[in-house]
């Protein structure tokens, strides 16, 4: 890597994973690791490693890295960041970048499901947030919800998508959306002899129904794109369930998990460009 280049960095310190995005005005380099018990330390280590690998020798880092913006749950705890922005602004920006071909239209909707939160964000084609909704304080329908129910089923959260595909045609409805009640319901269904495949498929449908109800007020015109981002967007079965519920196609950008970090790095880049000193 050339040491002459300027870089900005976005770090999305989420409840479950920390994502980092390095940007040189052209390309992004992204990485992630679990938040662990000390997200601040994890983020620091991740930053040091990424800078060393992608940017420059530590001695030159100060010259080449123009700004670090933090977002996500832990945004305020990252003392080395130049600025903290909410994940709503950053996801909007990042998703607009990741799906720029799709965003020719005036307004798009992003459905973002992370570790603790589910959000609906309306953006314009520049990634500017026009309106948003967010789930209330409970974790219903989020990554954490999936983790708890996966555990009750003796599965890894990453297995859910494949398992659900096998059960789509006989999905068993899950009524409870409270994480704790859903766990009880899932255990009850297992005892009744319902297959894991049918339970997981039902679980995904109930998540899709809930998130679609939440974003209903924000749904754009028929032809406007709907994007799906955040950690849970890795689960293709949920993406399909959301499509089925909306009866509209949903785009999952290739780096959807990194939308927040990418958005933060982009905001940092734009602010640097606006600053005459650089």
């Amino acid at each position, binding site marked *: 890597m050339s040491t002459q280049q300027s870089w900005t960095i976005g770090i999305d310190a989420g409840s479950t994973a920390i994502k980092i995005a390095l940007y040189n005005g052209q390309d992004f380099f992204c990485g992630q690791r679990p938040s662990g018990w000390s997200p601040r330390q994890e983020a620091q280590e991740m930053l040091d490693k990424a800078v060393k690998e992608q940017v420059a020798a530590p001695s030159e880092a100060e010259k080449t890295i123009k700004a670090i913006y933090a977002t996500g*749950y832990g945004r305020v705890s990252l003392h080395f960041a130049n600025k903290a922005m909410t994940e709503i602004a950053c996801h909007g920006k990042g998703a607009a970048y990741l799906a720029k071909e799709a965003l020719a239209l005036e307004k798009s909707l992003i459905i973002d499901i992370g570790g603790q939160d589910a959000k609906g964000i309306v953006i314009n084609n520049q990634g*500017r947030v026009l309106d948003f909704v967010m789930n*209330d304080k409970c974790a219903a329908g989020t990554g954490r919800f999936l983790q708890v129910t996966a555990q009750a089923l003796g599965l890894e959260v990453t297995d859910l998508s494949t398992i659900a595909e096998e059960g789509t045609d006989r999905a068993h409805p899950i009524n409870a959306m409270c994480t704790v009640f859903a766990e009880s319901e899932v255990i009850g269904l297992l005892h009744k002899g319902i297959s894991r495949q049918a339970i997981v498929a039902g679980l995904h449908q109930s998540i899709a129904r809930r998130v679609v109800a939440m974003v209903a007020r924000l749904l754009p015109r028929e032809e406007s794109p709907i994007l799906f981002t955040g950690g849970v967007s890795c689960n293709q079965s949920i993406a399909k369930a959301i499509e089925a519920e909306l009866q509209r196609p949903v785009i999952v950008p290739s780096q959807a998990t990194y939308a927040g970090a990418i958005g933060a790095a982009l905001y940092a880049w734009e602010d640097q460009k606006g600053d005459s000193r650089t």
Partner: protein
Amino acid sequence: MSLSRPLSMAHFDMAIPHAATSIKQMKEAGTKVVGHYCVMAPQELILAAGAVPMALCATKEEPIADGEKALPRNFCPLIKSSYGFAITDKCPFFLYSDLVMGETTCDGKKKMFELMSQCKPMVVMNLPPSYEREADKAYWLTEVERTKAVLEEQFNVTITEEAIVEATKVLNAERRLVQSLAKTMQADPVPLSGLDLLKVLWSRNFVFDRAEFAAQVEELIAELEERIQKGEGALPKGAKRIIVTGVPTGLGAEKVLRLLEESGAAIVYIENCAGMKQFLTEVDESKEPLQGVADKYLATPCSCMSPNKTRLELLAQLVDEYNADGVVDITWQGCHTYNVESRILREYLQEKKGTPFLHIETDYSQGDSEQLKTRIQAFLEMIA
């Protein structure tokens, strides 16, 4: 420009502590006290009966657990807090009230007042469903007349027309004064923080001498006008200007207002019952005294009225007058009328003004503060 707080706020910092100690002395001196909860309570009648109106505690989280012993948990925190305070005698104003006045602004309160009447003499005024229909206005007048009769019987007095006229003049003058206080918030930078504005308006319920309160507000207004001249503000010039509306957010329940100001926004107007709602209109002094009082209170733009067009029109007008960048509408959990009206209000403001709008549903606990902070900060970033 330096950010600072007006010196005259000292009066209002002390209002509640003073009230808690002076009420005992007042009672010992034989003063009659009428406790009330709502801006629908016709205070002219209380004054005209020679009694002192006192706002009862309803905005603290502390007694909610006691309230939940008798009330459903999914009731709104305001009702549970009111009832919890009442049954535990933790509110000195309730303890010392000779009579408690309630208004049926929702089904939850209506039924809670039935339980509350077991611990205090009460007069519950039944509100009609609308402020528009003539039949409802006529019915409300009978409720005001009945309330007058209850006060007369309770305190063994006759409430004369002259006394109502006199009380009306005092309270109308206070309403005009508070309106001119609110107008100072049109300046940029705002000369007073929203939390301090709330404190002043809330203190109004705890300074029992109306002339004393008027003098304190006049002193504050004079200081604020001087600050505006000098360009001194409580928040930086250019801070995002927010109008807060929705359910009452009195001291103890000011969480959302605090989070807004901590996130750098200036609260330029508080439209709700803890704020300006009761001061907006005056009693028409050209009407029959009791009719004038009845009409003023019934016209209150509360979400318990259906339809409630006045609130929509008022907010659209306030957005212009206060040059607001956004409206934040707060609903307590379980408050169905404000919750549904939020959607109506959002769509109305969207259509008329395109005003950015954030609806927050919460309670008195701090459990969702971090989540709310994210939503508030995102809202401010959105309108940046």
